């Protein structure tokens, strides 16, 4: 259950995008997202340019469109919310396919959909071309709070271990004739979840002991050398740079 499940976001490869140091990619995606969010919703051409830029990155990284589209499913809750707005919005109404929709509502929905879609697509491309572990090392390089990075690192390492424990507990329950079928079984499942929490907490304590035993003093030693060259930063800057050019160009026309 380990590999297939956990790395489903990552698509190994050896392209220019894959090879970029993770800190460059993280910074590039963040800057790109900020540019997208800062774009006024009426500037359709700019959004089109952003989408083309992402398509270009996907092409360079040899990520097929289907791979990205399937993983866009995380966005569905936002889509549902966005679709609801024109119906519940107030203000001026306009007839669309026989429905009377709110004009400000439509604008708001478009705004959410366009920006969220671009952001999610950029994140998926980042995740597809960067190993989870390297992403954390990149975050460490960018001086994100070390405690947060460490927590994420342990999550990455112990996800399988905790999931395995959870599976064993479920097997143990079912071996004794219990199967959760309806709401009345919730207390049993809840107690299992509590037990799992305590087991994981105790494992955390043991891991901490093991870390102390090897001289841990509160910070993770940086072992992997992830230095990025100026050229690599420049390559990574192309995405947000081009996005910014599109934004400013649109401004010039507006």
């Amino acid at each position, binding site marked *: 259950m380990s590999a297939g499940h956990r790395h489903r976001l990552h698509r190994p490869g050896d392209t220019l995008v894959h090879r970029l140091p993770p800190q460059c990619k993280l910074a590039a995606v963040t800057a790109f997202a900020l540019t997208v969010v800062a774009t006024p919703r009426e500037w359709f051409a700019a959004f089109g340019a952003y989408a083309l830029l992402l398509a270009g990155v996907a092409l360079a990284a040899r990520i097929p469109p289907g791979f990205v589209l399937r993983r866009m499913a995380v966005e569905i809750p936002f889509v549902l919310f966005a679709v609801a707005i024109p119906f519940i919005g107030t203000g001026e109404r306009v007839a669309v396919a026989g429905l009377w929709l709110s004009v400000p509502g439509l604008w708001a929905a478009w705004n959410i959909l366009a920006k969220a879609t671009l952001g999610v697509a950029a994140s998926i491309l980042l995740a597809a071309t960067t190993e989870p572990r390297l992403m954390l090392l990149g975050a460490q390089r960018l001086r994100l709070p070390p405690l947060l990075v460490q927590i994420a690192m342990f999550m990455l390492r112990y996800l399988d271990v905790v999931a395995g424990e959870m599976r064993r507990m479920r097997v143990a329950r079912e071996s004794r004739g219990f199967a959760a079928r309806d709401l009345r079984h919730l207390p049993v499942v809840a107690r299992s979840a509590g037990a799992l929490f305590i087991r994981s907490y105790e494992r955390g304590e*043991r891991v901490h002991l093991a870390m102390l035993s090897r001289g841990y003093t509160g910070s993770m030693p940086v072992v992997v050398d992830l230095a990025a060259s100026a050229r690599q930063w420049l390559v990574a800057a192309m995405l947000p740079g081009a996005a910014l050019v599109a934004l400013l160009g649109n401004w010039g026309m507006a």
Partner: protein
Amino acid sequence: MTASRRPGDGAVASLEVSRLAYAYPDGTQALFGVDLRVERGERVALLGPNGAGKTTLVLHLNGILTAGHGTVAVAGLPVAKDSLLEIRRRVGLVFQDPDDQLFMPTVREDVAFGPANLGIRGEELQQRVEDALEQVGMLEAIDRPPHHLSFGQRRRVAVATVLAMEPEILVLDEPSSNLDPASRRELAEILRSLDVTVLMVTHDLPYALELCERSLILSGGVIAADGPTRELLADAELLAAHRLELPYGFTVA
């Protein structure tokens, strides 16, 4: 019983514990005055039933628990607040569950964790990592994530993580637990090949006999017996008195 080191007897013991007593914060007394001495290069088994205080004793050896009474010294250096980092370098603790011990995303980073905390970097660090993995025959797994290894392989990597710190003494908590016979034999071969003092905590008596000349029995929070493993295991009465049993069909000639 091994007495504390007399001045002038020359050699410094790898490990010297004297009159060590400890009570848990809730008041449960776990150790009632433990005395033991392990000479450099020895392989010693610490035997005892569940709940005898074995793990509690082990956690004192590198200063995770601090003695309520008595002292622990590693190669002459007493365990104290200001010597903790050096003590933890000298005592390589291998925990029972390798998933507790291997917490980094790859084997390489995990083995590097200890020496990196000692301030070693660059080429020397890589060399240490590779040497340690070589010693346990796991060099080819260097870039794999620990959770993709088999249990026996993970235990071997766990040994490598402490070997990389070049310890004075290797302390193993139940090294044979959960291993299949082949992994068990492989681990024994590795432990025999290492040029390091070993203290092995176990209730796997045949494994103790296979690897250690000398054994200690920890029972009721004190060292109840200390002698050649073969003699201790041949003494059925002694074993029975401390809830230790040889496996069915196993006899010590």
